[in-house]
Every structure is written in structure tokens, then in C-alpha cells.
């Protein structure tokens, strides 16, 4: 009888423990603020690596002689066939993808290093392109995130040389603007600590200042038909220049190690989420969100302080 009582007590204890057992709520207070910051960084890095750096690499091809061009093409543009469609305008055709048009670069016949250069990177954003271009879109189940500013259409990223106040610096204005919406734009100033034009952006440190706004379009319908139901915007202003560094040859390791920025996520229903991000130490960023400040390690994605 005693044993039965003991077994029954143990059984009931197990049941009660199972009923009460739960995971602790481990989500940090600034998690959403950090997510917003990460979204901004993800898209900023996308434009830096996929557009601006590519233009810089193309510049090294553009100014090189024929022999050097082959070497540079094999190094960075192996998958593209580069065709000069008119003077100073080059179209890139993707040989790995049915020779489809990928993008164009308009040099206006000048090197990017020239003081009055105005380069334009043009691509078609959206799957409705006659060439069925997927560039510019990330498909995520039923949601579309537009990397461009419009649902579908030609997008131009301008990189215009500017004169720097500093003697050993190269400087460009990087801009992109959607004609249809006042919300979406990029307006950066890119400073490179180098007296000579580098072959790639990642040869040294570079600084980005300015502001921008990314638009996210959520599509509830089929993946092949863009029907924007909701729009979310991520506006940011860089308060002090963001210093970037990348291990050479490893753009995945691109990290921000200076500056601060104000971000604001908002939708067209009047909801807004302000976030403040400040550099603390390498790979550590202080996020302030809804009155709470926490330091995050961007590599581990965890709160460290």
C-alpha cells in the first residue's frame, strides 16, 4: 500500500511538473529593433557588394588594356559576356543563365576615377521583365521583398564622382530614387581612404554617410503576379559616417566598425518603429528600441550587454 501511494504520488508530481513546465521567454527587449537594423544592413551590404563594388571592378576592366582585360574578366566577370552596345554603354549577358540580359553600366566614356564621371548601373527589377529577370527580387514564400524601389521596371543606381576635401580620399555620391514614390531612395556619400583608384571596394576601409529608405512589398497572391497588398518602409539616416571593413576576398565578413544611424520602420497605416543603432566595438552594436538599450554582437546575433 505504501509503495502504491509512493508510485501514485510520483505520477501526480510528474503530471503537475509537465503541466507547469515551460520555456523561459528568452527574446531580448530590443530583438525587433535589432531585426530592423539587420534588415537595413542586409540591403545596404547588398547594394555595396552587388552594385557599387561591381562597378568598381568593372572600372578596373574598363581602364585596362586588352591583355589585362582578359585577366580581369576571368577574375570577376567570368559568367558574363560584356557587349558595348553604344559608346561607353556596356550590357552584361549571363552566359550561365541562357545568355539573358543581366544589367548595364553606362560609363559615359569616362573612368570612375575621373572627377566629372557619372556612372549608372541599370537593371531590370521584377519577374515581369521580357527577359524574365529575377535580379532585384528575393522570393520568400508568399512575400516579395523588393530590392528596388518599384515593383517592376528599370532601376538606375548613379555613382557620381565628387571632390573630396581630404587629399588622400576618393569620394562618390551614390544615389537611386523611385520616381513614383517619395518614400524610396538612396542618397549616400561614399568615401574611400585611397589616393589611387582601387580595383575593388574592399581593398581598404570605406565610409558611408547619408540616408535612404528601402521599400518592402508583401504579396499575398501568386509568386508570379505582383499584387501589392501591404507596403513597409525602412527609412534610415546615418548620423555619423559608417566605417566598413572587409577581409579581402571575403565580403561575407563585411562589417561595420564605426558611426551611428537612426532608423524608422513605418507602414502606410501610420505605424512607426524608431530604432537607434550605434557602433560600440568591432562587431558590436548598441540598439535602442522603445526606450531600452542593449548591445548586440552581430556575428553571433546575441545580446552581449
Amino acid at each position, binding site marked *: 500500500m505504501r509503495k502504491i501511494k509512493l508510485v501514485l504520488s510520483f505520477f501526480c508530481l510528474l503530471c503537475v511538473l509537465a503541466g507547469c513546465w515551460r520555456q523561459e521567454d*528568452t527574446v531580448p527587449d530590443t530583438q*525587433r529593433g535589432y531585426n530592423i537594423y539587420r534588415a537595413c544592413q542586409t540591403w545596404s551590404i547588398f547594394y555595396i557588394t552587388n552594385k557599387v563594388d561591381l562597378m568598381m571592378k568593372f572600372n578596373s576592366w574598363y581602364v585596362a588594356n586588352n591583355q589585362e582585360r582578359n585577366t580581369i574578366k576571368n577574375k570577376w566577370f567570368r559568367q558574363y559576356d560584356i557587349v558595348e552596345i553604344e559608346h561607353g554603354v556596356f550590357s552584361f549577358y549571363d552566359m550561365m543563365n541562357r545568355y539573358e540580359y543581366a544589367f548595364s553600366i553606362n560609363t559615359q566614356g569616362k573612368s570612375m576615377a575621373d572627377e566629372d564621371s557619372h556612372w549608372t548601373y541599370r537593371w531590370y527589377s521584377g519577374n515581369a521583365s521580357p527577359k524574365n529577370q529575377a535580379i532585384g527580387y528575393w522570393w520568400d514564400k508568399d*512575400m516579395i521583398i523588393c530590392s528596388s524601389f518599384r515593383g517592376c521596371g528599370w532601376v538606375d543606381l548613379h555613382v557620381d564622382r565628387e571632390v573630396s576635401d581630404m587629399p588622400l580620399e576618393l569620394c562618390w555620391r551614390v544615389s537611386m530614387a523611385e520616381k513614383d514614390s517619395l518614400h524610396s531612395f538612396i542618397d549616400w556619400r561614399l568615401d574611400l581612404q585611397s589616393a589611387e583608384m582601387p580595383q575593388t571596394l574592399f581593398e581598404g576601409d570605406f565610409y558611408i554617410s547619408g540616408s535612404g529608405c528601402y521599400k518592402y512589398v508583401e504579396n499575398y497572391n501568386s509568386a508570379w503576379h505582383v499584387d501589392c497588398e501591404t507596403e513597409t518602409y525602412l527609412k534610415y539616416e546615418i548620423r555619423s559616417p559608417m566605417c566598413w571593413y572587409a577581409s579581402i576576398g571575403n565580403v561575407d565578413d563585411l562589417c561595420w566598425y564605426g558611426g551611428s544611424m537612426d532608423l524608422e520602420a513605418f507602414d502606410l497605416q501610420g505605424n512607426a*518603429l524608431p530604432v537607434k543603432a550605434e557602433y560600440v566595438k568591432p562587431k558590436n552594436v548598441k540598439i535602442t528600441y522603445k526606450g531600452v538599450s542593449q548591445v548586440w554582437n552581430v556575428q553571433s546575433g546575441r545580446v552581449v550587454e
Partner: protein
Amino acid sequence: MRTIGVLGALLLFVEFVGAQTLDSAQVSAIDKNFWKTSLPRHELQWGVGCPLLEEFIIYGMGSDDLSGDFDRPHNWFDKEVYRGSRGTTLFNWSFSYLYRVCKFLWVGADVTYIGFYDVYYDKFTHQKAYINSDQLLTFMPKIRFSYLNRKYVTLYSGISCGIGWVIHSEKKEVNVVTNWAFQATAFGVKAGTSWFGFAEVGLGYKGFGVIGLGYHFNRQNRQLFKRNSL
């Protein structure tokens, strides 16, 4: 996990062989068909089980996670919540019916149910935001081997295998996931006459341990008793 499965199967096999040995020893002494009139044929059981496994199946080792929504901007304006108290049905409730095919073999089915109810609160205002629930309903055909069959006491082992539905309700949106369900009863004991109590130890969707009440429908016995009394 594989080791537990192998051990469980081995135990069942040993128990089954033991049951056969006992039967053959008894056969010589009593009428082979005596069990049909002396032992119950139909049985209903109501039991409560320990829900640890179900909770693990439903929730796993994960926790509420907002970390993945950085690339889901449509989630940014959702309420930020934390989970408060978890309500449960406390036990895993089971209902079984079994029919004795021969002296040592029963067939039937288990139906089990358990529910977990989580209250979520706004992270900043601490007001109740919504309640999410997870409910697990299973239907499992069952085989039972009874290796000791006495008037008041029966020892048995068994196995059930069937289908389970996890009904997940989140912010009033209901999602049903269908999966396999099982229960291996390593050891079970029941004691009583028409009404009886039982206890089982095993692994599966009924729980690690199950206790409860049951009822025998001895129709043939009753008719026999009635005839004898007349």
C-alpha cells in the same frame, strides 16, 4: 531512442513467450474454452497519463523566437509579446475499448486527448494580448497480450499505433498537423471485477505512466449466471 525501442520489443517478446508457457501448462488442467465464459470479453477504460512526451512533441526544445523576422517586415508591426502562464488539461486523457479475441489476445483502440493553452502578454504594456493553444488528439488501434489472467487480476503488455492530430491555434488561426501516433505499454496491471482499476507503464502518446478506471462487459458470463440461477 533505438535502444529503447529494441529493449521494448524484446520485453514484449519475452512476455509473450511467458504467456504461452503459462497457457500450455493450464490447458491440460482446464477446458480450453473455459476462458470464454469465465473471463471478460469486452472492456472500456478511462485513463489519465503523464503528458511529458506530448509537451515535448508539441513544443520540442524551442522557445518563442522573434529573431527570424528581420526579413519579414510585415511582422514588424505585430504585437511583441511574452508568454505567461500555461494552462493544460493537466493529464493526457485516454479512452479505450478492447475486445478479447482469445484468452491472451485483445484488440481494440485508444483515443487520447491533451490540450495546452498559453496566455501571451504585451511585452511593454503587460496586458493580455491573446491565447494560443495546442491540442493533441490521437486515434490508435491497439493489440494487447494478457499473460496472467486471473479472476481479479490481469497482467498485460500491448502496443498501439495510429494517427494523431496536433491542432495549433495561433491568434485565432487554426492549423492542423497530422502525424503518426503510438503507445507501447511495457507493463500493465488491472484489478477488479466488473469495475476495475488499472495502471500502465510505457512510452507513447498516452503517457509514460497511465492510471484509470475501467468496466468489463461480461455478457456471456451474465447469461450463464442467469441460466444457472434459474
